Structures are given as structure tokens and as C-alpha cells.
């Protein structure tokens, strides 16, 4: 029992479970799933489908945060990828040809890879703090997305393109499979090869990792490229879901939601250990929360207040000082400088 309680997934799962329970009590048909035209419909399916882009972005973000980094540009990459693929498709003679759709998606993903590489170069090669390095693309990326769409909303009429965002495979949304595929790739790369160890090592201590022979630069580049790719795929899902690209609003706040999902999932912003499954649950919690708030009829924008509280609580729980303050509040005297200094003594 104690082991269960201590498991890193305990809290995320518990939160998700209680959210679902609340929904069930509030509206028992929340869990009802119906089959129509060989597709499943229902709130749970919606959560999976609408949460897919966020889950994708969060997978990439998890690896970046594990290296003690952060990628603020994912929202912009989502917009750029969607914009580029919609632009290419809308320029085609027959918007529904498979080769056109595939090449559009290919081009968009290639561009996302390149944007990830750009972030990676700034962080790993130029040595700029990640938050700053990715801020550049966050600012400029919105402009680039609008440049691609010429400030308009590009709509496409291509059932084949719409398939990845709205279609179904074996009755489940295609997007679920996309997420599953990327998650499997990420898990395979990090847990079945030594890459996970290297990422965690670089996140713990880049210099010690370099001196242990790890190619820190390569590892950093790789995670930013992977994060770019994830954001690019998410961008395709988002634009395909609505069959249009909006350079201004697509992927807005994704960076923040993704960071939140990662943190809820148990990965510390200080780098090191990362939990991909935890992240997925974190993303699901955020999506469920949004759905719940819609359902009980509170204006959806208020989700932001709830998110603010969640961020704060999770960070406070993660903060060692906070925990210590709670524990030691009454039995030690209060020396401000000691807290910084004690860590040096115990080495």
C-alpha cells in the first residue's frame, strides 16, 4: 500500500480518477459511448481526440524539460506546421490527392524538424539559456505562421487531410494512434536504449555528463529536434481537425499547457528524471478539466484560474524548501541564510 502511495504515478492517476468520478456523479452519461458509422462517440473519446495535440507536444516537452531546458516555441511550431501543410494543400489542383496531402505533411514536418534544430543550435551550440533561446522562435514563429497564411485563415477541402484529425481507425480516432505511435517511439528510444540515461544525466549535470563522455551537445540537439517534430505533428492534427490553419490562434498557450502537463506528470523543472506516462496523464487531466468546465456550464475561460492554482500547488509540492518549511516550521529557528548553506556542508 505504501509503495503504491509512493509511486510517481499515484498522484496524477488519483487526480485524473477523481476528476472522472466527479464527472460521473455530475452527469452519469459522461461515460456513455455510442457507436455511429463505425466510430465511437462520447465525452471520453472527445477528451482523447481533442487532447491528442497537447499529449504530443507534452511528450516532446518532457524530454526537453528532462535536460533542464524548456521549449517556449512549441505553440508557434504548431501554428507554422499547420499553416504550411494547409497552404500546400490549398495550392494543389486536386486537394484530395494522396501524394499532395502526403507531401504537404512531409514538408510541414521537415520544417518543424528544422525549427527544432534551430532551437537546439541556440541552446547546445551557442549556449543560450533555453527559455531565452526558444523565446526568439516563440515571438518570430507567430509572425512566420501569419506570413505563411498571409494573415488569413486558410481553409482546405481535403477529406484525406481531414482524416488524421477527424477520421477513425478500428472505431477509435486516428489521432489516438498518432499519439500512441509517438509515445511508443519516445519510450523505445529512452527506455530501451541508453538515450534516456543520457538525457537524465545531461539534465542533472551537463558538465559532469560531458566529462563522463556523453555527447551533451548531441543529446540536447536531439531533444529539441524531437520536440519540434512532436509540435509539428500536433500542428497537423490541429489543422486537420478543423480543416483550416489560423496562424494567429492555432497552438496558442500550448507551451504553457504542455509545461503544466509535464509538471503534473511528476517531471521536475530542474531536469533529471522524466516520466512520459505521467506526462500523458497530466495532459489528460488538463483536457478532462477543460471538458468538465464546459460541461458544468462555467465559462471555459475560467479554466485559466484553475490551471493557475494547479501550477502553483504542484510547484509548491515539488519545492523542497516548501516541504521543509511545513515540516520544520515549529521545531527549528528561522535562519534565512542557513538553507542555502546547509547543502554545501553535507557534500
Amino acid at each position, binding site marked *: 500500500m505504501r509503495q503504491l502511495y509512493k509511486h510517481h504515478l499515484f498522484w496524477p492517476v488519483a487526480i485524473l480518477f477523481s476528476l472522472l468520478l466527479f464527472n460521473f456523479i455530475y452527469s452519469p452519461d459522461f461515460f456513455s459511448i455510442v457507436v455511429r458509422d463505425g466510430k465511437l462517440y462520447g465525452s471520453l473519446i472527445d477528451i482523447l481526440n481533442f487532447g491528442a495535440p497537447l499529449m504530443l507536444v507534452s511528450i516532446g516537452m518532457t524530454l526537453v524539460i528532462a535536460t533542464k531546458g524548456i521549449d517556449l516555441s512549441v505553440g508557434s511550431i504548431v501554428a507554422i506546421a499547420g499553416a504550411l501543410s494547409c497552404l500546400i494543400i490549398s495550392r494543389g489542383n486536386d486537394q484530395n490527392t494522396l501524394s499532395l496531402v502526403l507531401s504537404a505533411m512531409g514538408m510541414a514536418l521537415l520544417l518543424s524538424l528544422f525549427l527544432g534544430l534551430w532551437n537546439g543550435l541556440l541552446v547546445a551550440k551557442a549556449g543560450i539559456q533555453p527559455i531565452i533561446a526558444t523565446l526568439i522562435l516563440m515571438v518570430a514563429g507567430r509572425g512566420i505562421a501569419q506570413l505563411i497564411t498571409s494573415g488569413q485563415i486558410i481553409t482546405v477541402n481535403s477529406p484525406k487531410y481531414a482524416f488524421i484529425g477527424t477520421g477513425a481507425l478500428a472505431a477509435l480516432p486516428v489521432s489516438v494512434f498518432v499519439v500512441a505511435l509517438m509515445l511508443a517511439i519516445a519510450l523505445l528510444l529512452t527506455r530501451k536504449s541508453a538515450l534516456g540515461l543520457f538525457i*537524465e544525466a545531461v539534465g542533472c549535470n551537463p558538465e559532469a555528463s560531458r566529462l563522463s563522455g556523453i555527447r551533451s551537445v548531441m543529446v540536447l540537439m536531439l531533444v529539441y529536434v524531437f520536440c519540434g517534430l512532436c509540435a509539428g505533428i500536433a500542428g497537423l492534427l490541429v489543422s486537420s481537425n478543423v480543416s483550416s490553419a489560423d496562424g494567429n490562434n492555432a497552438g496558442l498557450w500550448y507551451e504553457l499547457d504542455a509545461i503544466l502537463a509535464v509538471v503534473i506528470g511528476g517531471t521536475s523543472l530542474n531536469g533529471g528524471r522524466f516520466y512520459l506516462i505521467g506526462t500523458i496523464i497530466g495532459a489528460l487531466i488538463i483536457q478532462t478539466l477543460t471538458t468538465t468546465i464546459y460541461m458544468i456550464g462555467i465559462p471555459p475561460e475560467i479554466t485559466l484560474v484553475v490551471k493557475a492554482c494547479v501550477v502553483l500547488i504542484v510547484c509548491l509540492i515539488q519545492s523542497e524548501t516548501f516541504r521543509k518549511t511545513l515540516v520544520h516550521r515549529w521545531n527549528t529557528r528561522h535562519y534565512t541564510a542557513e538553507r542555502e548553506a546547509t547543502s554545501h556542508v*553535507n557534500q
Partner: protein
Amino acid sequence: MEQQPVLEMRGIHKQFPGVKALSNVDFRLFSGEVHALMGENGAGKSSLIKVLTGVYSIDQGAVKLSNQPVSLKSPLEAQEAGISTVYQEVNLCTNLTVAENIFIGREPRRFGRILWKQMNRNADKLLKDRMQLNIDVTLPLHAYSVAIQQLIAIARALSISAKVLILDEPTSSLDANEVKQLFSIMQTLKQDGLAILFVTHFLDQVYEISDRITILRNGNLVGEYMAKDLPKLELVSQMIGKDLTQLEKLPSKSASEQFEGNEIIAEAKQAARKGAIEPFDLKLRKGEVIGLAGLLGSGRTETARLFFGADALDQGTVRMSKANQHIQSPRKAIEHGVAFCSENRKTEGILDELTVRENIIVALQSTRGWYKPLSRKKQNEIAEHYIQLLNINPPHTEQLIKNLSGGNQQKVLLARWLLTQPKLLILDEPTRGIDVGAKTEIQRLVLDLSAKGMSVLFISSELEEVLRVSHRIAVLRDRRKIKEISDQEMTEHSIMKTIAGG
């Protein structure tokens, strides 16, 4: 004529989780005196100083300043009470100007407005009058050398009109001339009636400047002596304590000629790096332990880092002889059988959030590449093997390394490198900050490894230790290799002389 001490500490206790930092320590400081606080690493010197500067609280005991009991709760309170400290790493803000660094927090003000001109004038005057320092006080601090920064830190302490000045290892990054300048200033301050607490690990400097010596060992007070009544050897044995005999039980090592015929494992030819080390040659033979002796900042670590490719060379070559391979990066170095245990365990060694197992296998794994992971079973076997071999405590593979004591962390790092089966093992201060028991274990291990044919480059600030394990000693001074010493010449005296340049 026993006058009243300006500072008196009685029965100080300080406990940290798992470590007794200070137990029942007394300490006195008289004005107009330089009082050296001596002790090995981990003896409790820095804890005592942190108590004095209000960084640590005390669990038990009393501190009296000018015969008044004081309770120092923060650096600010300590400063206001008249206790100022200058640390080894200059704790000033290098982005601010010299004048600001002296006066910040107490700037001359009128209606809250800082009077820059007056502040600059005051700073200029203070530095000229009491430090014999004539510099532009409007430049940011980072425009000046560490030695000058240190003097400025002292000037700051003086400007607070300190009664007690604590100098914590002030000389470790200064060259001989700078030390001379510092000492002459200390003499003047002493004559002005200031009480100076001086911490250093350079024995000569202690006798050059100090009037009184207090020795700590393992958090306990050994005694307080007048410097003139305490012979150097006595001081050393008091610092080391009864462990001296324990240390001597190391296996005897072979003479250096014995290695003459052995193959050369690694060789540096005219290797140099600007600001780190002047061109030097050094050969390491199979099975030989080479000690690097010299003061902190003499270029010891820098030399070692070149052998590991941790820093880039500016000229010359460092190569592993057998493969005839240049060492350009840590990766290359590890590939060719070099291992490097850094002196900065925390910043360059351990991966704090990872387990003992992961910390042990990481170097081996990185040579194998990411696509050839060691199986979990293999990893556990390896980790358990080394935990047993090196007596790592607690003996759990899945323990996070940050929860281990310093000595055990050091052993994990040793395990990390032994696992790569290096031909050349570089140990930079491997015994710093760890307890004596672990210390001898590590020294013994070095000799064992060398007997099995591994070459070792051994760096330590403690001369005894270098002498104990090395077959040959390269002496460094002022970022230059001065001399290689072997066999009969290898005595503390001769090496000290070489280090001092006499």
C-alpha cells in the same frame, strides 16, 4: 598579561543531519593579533566561521563579543556587530563598481539619494590609505584580478569598522607577490588593533603571519597554542591526530627506477593552455603513480584536465602512446583508456538525481554508445560488484547518489572510472572533504591499482598524501612545471622548498 579577548566562543555545538560539525568547541580572538584556525578538510573550520558570520545557528554554546553575549542570526547582524568576513571565492558582485562593492548597503546618502562622487572619493581614499592600492574605483570589479578583488573585499570589511576580520583561505588563489602584499596589509591592520582570524592550509604562511593557532580536528577542539611555541611538525601531527599511525600502514611502494623500462602510457609534449599552464613535458609509465604537487592555483588541475581533453590545448600535444592518439575531448580520452575524477565532485562528478547504479555505469555506457545499452541485469551485477569492492555504504544500487556521504560519493565516482578499465587514472583531490577512514581506503586502492599495472596521476593539496602514494612527483608553481622529484629527494622538505621556489 592576559587581556580580555574581543571575541570568545564557548562550548559550541552544531549538528547537521548525520554529521556532527562542531562539538564543544571553544575559541578566543584577541585584538591586535592574527589567529590562525587550522585543521584538515572537514575539521570544522568552515562551520565555525559560518557560525561567526551568522550563516549557521548554533545548537548549544555562547558567543561573546567584547564580553557581551551576542546572537548572530544573519550575515547582516554579524557585520553590524563588527565581524566581517572575506571568503576564498570573492563574495562581491563583479558587475558593480569597486566603490560600490566597498560601500553597498551603507552608501553615503542625502535624503535617500546616493552620493556617488563622495562614495568614489571615500573608496579611493580608503584603498590608498589602508591598502596602498591606487586604482580606478569607478570601474566594475571584474576589470581587476582576483588578488585585487580580495583586497577590495578586505577594504569593504574595514569600512564597516570591523573589530574582527575573518580571512577564509584568502591566499589560495594568489601568487607569491600578491600574498606578500596581503600580509603587509594584514600587519598594518594588526597594528591598528584589529583582530584577524586567518584560515589557510599553507603551513608556511601560518608561521609567517600568525601569533596564535587554534587546531580543530573532526569537529573537536584540539588546542590553542602560541605560534612560536608550536613546532611545525607538532602542528601537523595535531592536525592529523592519531590517524598518523593508521595512515602509515600502507603497503610499501616500489622505487621509481623500477618503472624506467616500462612502456610509456601517456605523454605530454610542450603541452600548454593560455592562462592555465605553461608548456610542459610529462611521461607516464605503466604502473607508475605520478603526484602533482603545488599550491592551489599552481596549475595542477589544469594539467590533469589537459590529459583528459577536458580543455583544449593551445599548443603542443598530449597523446596516449600505444594508440598514438591525440586526446582532444573527454570522449576520445575515455575511448583511449583515460579516466578523470574531478576535484569538484558536486559540479563535475556526480549526477545527483540519479541512482548509484546509473552513476557507476554512465561512463561505460557512453563509450558503448546509446544504441548498445547494458541490460538492467548486467547493470545491477556491475553496481553490486563495485559496491562490495569499494565498500560503498549504504550498499543499495537504487539509492540516489545525492543521499550518500561525500566519501561514498567519491567511491561511486571511482567505481565509474574503474569500470571503464582505464590505463591512466587521473585523481584530482580524491580525498578532499572525506573522513580519514575513507581517505586511507582510497590511498590504499591507488597503490593496489598501480601494482596491477595502472598508471595514476595523483593530485592532492596534502603533501603527505602525495608523498605517500607517488613514485615520482612533478612540482608546479605559478602555472609552470618546475621540477620532477623522485626517490631519495622525495621528502616533504625538498618538495616544500621547490614549491616555495627556494
